C-alpha cells in the first residue's frame, strides 16, 4: 500500500483571483514537501485544499489513489493538520484540550499518551494552566503536540515554527525527522530554514504566480 499524496492539475481561487492553476506534484512516504512562495501566493489555501477544507476549482487531490476529501475517512484519519490557528480552547487547560483531540482522532482517551506528548515537547509542567495564561510559543507547542497523539502518515503544517524559540524549533525539527524515518510524510510552509533535516528528503515546490 503506497501512502502517496498526489496533486493533479490543481487550481485554486480566492475571491476572484486565481492563486495557482495546473499544479501537479506528489509527496512520497519519507519525503518532506516544502511549499515556497511570497505572501498571498496561496500556500495556506493549498494546504487547506489538501486537507479537504477548501474545494479546488479544478483538479484533484488524492491519497492512496482515492479522492482525498473530508468524506474519505481513511484519509482524514491518516493526516494531522496544524493550521495558522492553534485550535485550542482558551478557557480549558492543555490536558483538557489534548484529551478532546484524542476523541476527535478516534483514539481511546488515555492521559498517559497526553502526558508523553506534553513531555516530549517539554511543556508538561504547564499542563494545568488554562491556555489563556500561556505564551504564544507555548500555545503553539501544545497545538503541535497533536502530531504525537496516536499515529499518522501525513503531517500538514502551516508555519509550524511561528513564535517558537530556537530550542523548540530544533525540537520540532527532530520530531519531523523521526516522522520521516518512520516512512511518514510532511507537507509544510515555513519562513524558517530547515537546518536539521537532510536536504535529500526535502522537496521544494515554488508557488510564485507567473
Amino acid at each position, binding site marked *: 500500500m503506497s501512502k502517496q499524496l498526489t496533486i493533479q492539475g490543481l487550481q485554486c481561487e480566492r475571491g476572484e483571483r486565481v492563486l495557482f492553476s495546473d499544479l501537479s506534484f506528489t509527496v512520497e512516504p519519507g519525503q518532506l514537501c516544502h511549499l515556497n512562495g511570497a505572501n498571498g501566493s496561496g500556500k495556506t489555501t493549498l494546504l487547506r485544499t489538501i486537507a479537504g477544507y477548501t474545494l479546488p476549482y479544478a483538479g484533484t487531490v488524492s491519497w492512496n489513489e482515492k479522492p482525498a476529501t473530508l468524506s474519505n*475517512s481513511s484519509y482524514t484519519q491518516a*493526516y494531522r493538520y496544524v493550521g495558522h*490557528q492553534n*485550535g485550542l*480552547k482558551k478557557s*480549558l487547560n492543555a490536558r*483538557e484540550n489534548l484529551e*478532546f*483531540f484524542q476523541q*476527535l482522532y478516534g483514539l481511546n482517551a488515555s492521559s498517559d499518551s497526553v502526558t508523553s506528548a506534553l513531555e516530549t515537547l517539554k511543556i508538561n509542567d504547564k499542563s494545568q494552566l488554562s491556555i489563556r495564561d500561556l505564551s504564544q510559543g507555548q500555545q503553539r507547542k501544545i497545538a503541535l503536540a497533536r502530531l504525537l497523539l496516536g499515529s499518522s502518515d501525513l503531517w500538514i503544517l502551516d508555519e509550524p515554527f511561528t513564535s517558537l524559540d530556537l530550542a523548540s524549533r530544533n525540537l520540532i525539527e527532530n520530531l519531523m525527522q523521526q516522522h520521516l524515518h518512520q516512512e511518514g510524510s510532511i507537507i509544510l510552509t515555513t519562513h524558517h530554514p530547515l537546518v536539521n533535516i537532510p536536504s535529500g528528503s526535502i522537496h521544494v515546490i515554488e508557488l510564485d504566480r507567473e
Partner: protein
Amino acid sequence: MLKRDLLLAVRNYNDVLIGLFFFIVVVALIPISLNESTQILPRLAPGLVWIAALLSSILSLARLFEEDHADGSLDLILSSGSVYQCVLAKVAAHWLVTGLPLTLISPLIGLAYNLHGEQLSTLFMSLLVGTPVLSCIGAIGAALTTGLRSGSSIIALIVLPLNIPVMVYGAAAVRSSINSPDNVMTYLLLLTAMLIIAVVFAPIATAAALKISND
C-alpha cells in the same frame, strides 16, 4: 464531547445568564407595556412565552460555531470522523444552557401570566419538548452564517420562518390547555415527533453547512 462544550459553557456562565434574563425581560415587558388587567394575560401567554423563547434561543445561536471557527478547532472537528456527534453535542450544550433554564423557569412566568395548574405543566412540557427543536433547526442557520460579519442579524431572518411549526404547536398546546384540555396531548405528541426528526436529521444539514462555511 458534550462534556467539553458544557465545560466551556460553564466557564462562560455569563452567556447562560444573559440568555435567560433576555427571556425574562421580554416576557415581563409585555404585561408592562400593555398595562392590561390580569384577565387578558392568560390568553396572551402561550404566544408570547413561545415568541420570547424563540428570540432568546436565536440570540445565543449566532455564537454557536463562531468561536470554533475563529480559533481553528472547526477544522479539526470537520476532519474528524465524528462531525455528526460533535454537532449534536454542540446543539445539546446549546439547549442545556439556553432552552433548559428557560423551561425550568417557565412555571414562574406562567404564574405571572395568571396561568395555573394544568396550564403551567403544559407550558413546561411544551417548552421542554419544543426548545430542543429550536436549537436543532437554529444550528443549521448558525452554521450557514458562521464567519459572516452580519451573521447575527441574518440568522434570525433565515431561522425564524423555519421555526414557525414549533412555535405554532407549542403555543397551540398551551392555548388548548386553557380552552380545550382534550387536545393538549395532540400538540405535545406532534412536538415530540418533530423533536425526533429534528435531532436525527438537522445535524446532517448543519454538518454540511459547516463544511461550506469553513471553505
